[in-house]
């Protein structure tokens, strides 16, 4: 079943279509959204004075779709706050869309790192067996036992400077263990499946067996694992950001939530500050879930409703 065929079958699957549409729309918003607003990533209005840029807040605590005025060097500028402003006069829509960019980035980087690491370690351990397996599994098991959040908190707290890149790396380095275990289990079971034996009896070289027989049966699984890691990384980043251990500069969905809570957005009635980031996260994760369930049916022919 070539890549093209797989894709064709995937596109016919309803769950996959729903999921990929959701995620696609979210990605589109993250990409294009910031371009539709004059505000910067923190929600301020950037005013240029020669070589410096001054970030100017606008009217605080405005509800969604409020019109506002900015007094700049060129004169009066009329702006619309699509999602209102927070208690500091920063535009929510800008924060949200820039924040989504940051979350997607963390998801891809951290998720990708965790998946690749898990794949490599799990596959080598499963196929090689023996001492290699024992040592790699010992490391994996130790990592599994350590609570990830606590580890992330400790590492993050000790870093002098935190950026999105560092955050992605530390999340990626702590999320690979259960992928490794799962991939190892799959490899072990596939290694002794009769079709692998039959391939060997048909004269296939070890290399060909690994890449044409075993890998494809795992790759499909890896796809789904990446989706889960992607979602998990986003959630882990939100978690870190929420308790203040996120990037020291910049905006993300988690930081938005943190600030909304810190400044009592809900109690004061400024629901447009707290709800949008949470909603976006929920919708995104739901979309990812649908993709995964749909892919499961695509890759496992038996689950398809023929």
């Amino acid at each position, binding site marked *: 079943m070539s890549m093209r065929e797989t894709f064709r079958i995937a596109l016919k699957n309803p769950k996959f279509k729903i999921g990929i549409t959701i995620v696609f729309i979210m990605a589109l918003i993250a990409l294009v959204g910031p371009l539709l607003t004059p505000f910067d990533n923190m929600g301020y209005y950037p005013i240029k004075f020669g070589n410096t840029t001054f970030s100017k807040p606008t009217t605080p605590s405005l509800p969604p779709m409020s019109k506002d005025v900015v007094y700049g060097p060129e004169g009066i500028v009329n702006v619309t706050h699509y999602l209102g402003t927070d208690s500091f006069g920063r535009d929510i829509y800008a924060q949200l869309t820039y924040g989504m960019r940051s979350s997607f980035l963390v998801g891809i980087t951290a998720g990708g790192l965790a998946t690749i690491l898990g794949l490599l370690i799990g596959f080598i351990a499963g196929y090689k067996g023996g001492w290699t397996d024992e040592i790699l599994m010992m490391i994996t098991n130790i990592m599994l036992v350590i609570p990830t959040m606590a580890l992330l908190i400790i590492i993050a707290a000790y870093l002098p400077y935190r950026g999105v890149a560092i955050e992605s790396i530390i999340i990626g380095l702590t999320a690979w263990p259960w992928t490794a275990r799962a991939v190892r289990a799959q490899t072990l079971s596939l290694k002794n499946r009769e079709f692998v034996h039959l391939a060997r009896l048909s*004269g296939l070289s070890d290399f060909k067996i690994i890449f044409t027989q075993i890998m494809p*049966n795992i790759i499909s699984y890896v796809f789904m694992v990446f989706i889960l890691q992607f979602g998990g990384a986003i959630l882990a980043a939100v978690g870190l950001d929420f308790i203040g251990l996120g990037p020291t500069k910049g905006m993300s969905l988690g930081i938005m939530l943190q600030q909304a809570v810190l400044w009592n957005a809900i109690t004061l009635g400024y629901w447009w500050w707290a709800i949008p980031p949470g909603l976006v996260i929920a919708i995104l994760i739901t979309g990812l879930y649908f993709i995964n369930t749909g892919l499961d049916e695509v890759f496992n*022919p038996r689950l398809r409703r023929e």
Partner: protein
Amino acid sequence: MKELLKVEHLTKIFTSGLIGGFEIRAVDDVSFSIREGEIVSLVGESGSGKTTVGKLILRLLMPTSGKLLFEGRDVIKMKKKELKQYYYRRVQAVFQDPFASFNPLHTIDKVFDFVFDSYFPELDKNERDEMIDKALLQVGLNPDQIRGKFPHQLSGGQLQRILIARALLLKPKLLIADEIVSMLDASTRIDVLNLVGDFRDKYGTSVLFVTHDLALGYYISDTTIIMYRGTIVEMGNTEKVFHNPLHPYTQMLLESVPDLNVKWEFKGIEPEKEEESVYSIHGCRYAPRCHRATEKCFRVRPELREVEKHHWVACHLYE
């Protein structure tokens, strides 16, 4: 008839756990031979080591010790190139689980493609298709209903026939048939087994039929080997072994087969006692369950002796 395969003192010990484990002597000092055009059934229950013997012969596992000679050549020392170009051209297999024998992501045609790619690379697509269709017809399948389908769309019986057709392409000298009909319905079993017999009649292929079903073994084979816990307890000409079973284990096996010609008297059978480390016994493996075991049986392992022509047994009662 010429000797095709010779198994000499083959032993396979599995150790579980790298740091302090225990060992399982799955195959323990097994020796036998298969001649050209002979159908041998390797009979045993679970834990007898019969499947392991099959895998060792196919070089899917490496033995702990012992020799394996095919047409006089040492199979264990063969390197990958010789295995591919010489050995697997002459020795093939069909396994027990038809659904596990196919890669679920590929159509069934792929298994033929592998054989062509490795052994008949010069054939073009049309020639390949012709050969595949012919092979499928020979095993009683209609190519139109089979080609291009995925394994989960076909039945177990059809899949096993496809696997036999695949082996047919190479016209091997030896076919290892590992429990090939145990997962099939009773009505399909005989037909698939007949195919294997036809194989031998038409092409002179020898067959090693690994099974736990004595009736099937009796039906198809010339020679029968009975294994228990990694050792051969009795072997020889099928009719002799079945009509004159010498080893107490063989006798018990035959009594337990629900055969339509035999009436059972319900007298109570001694079931297996709790699992003791049977594998570490130095004497006869069957001693703990044998009604006629003597003290010697627990100490000394009996050797295979030819008690009558073409009939060997490993039991102290016959020394």
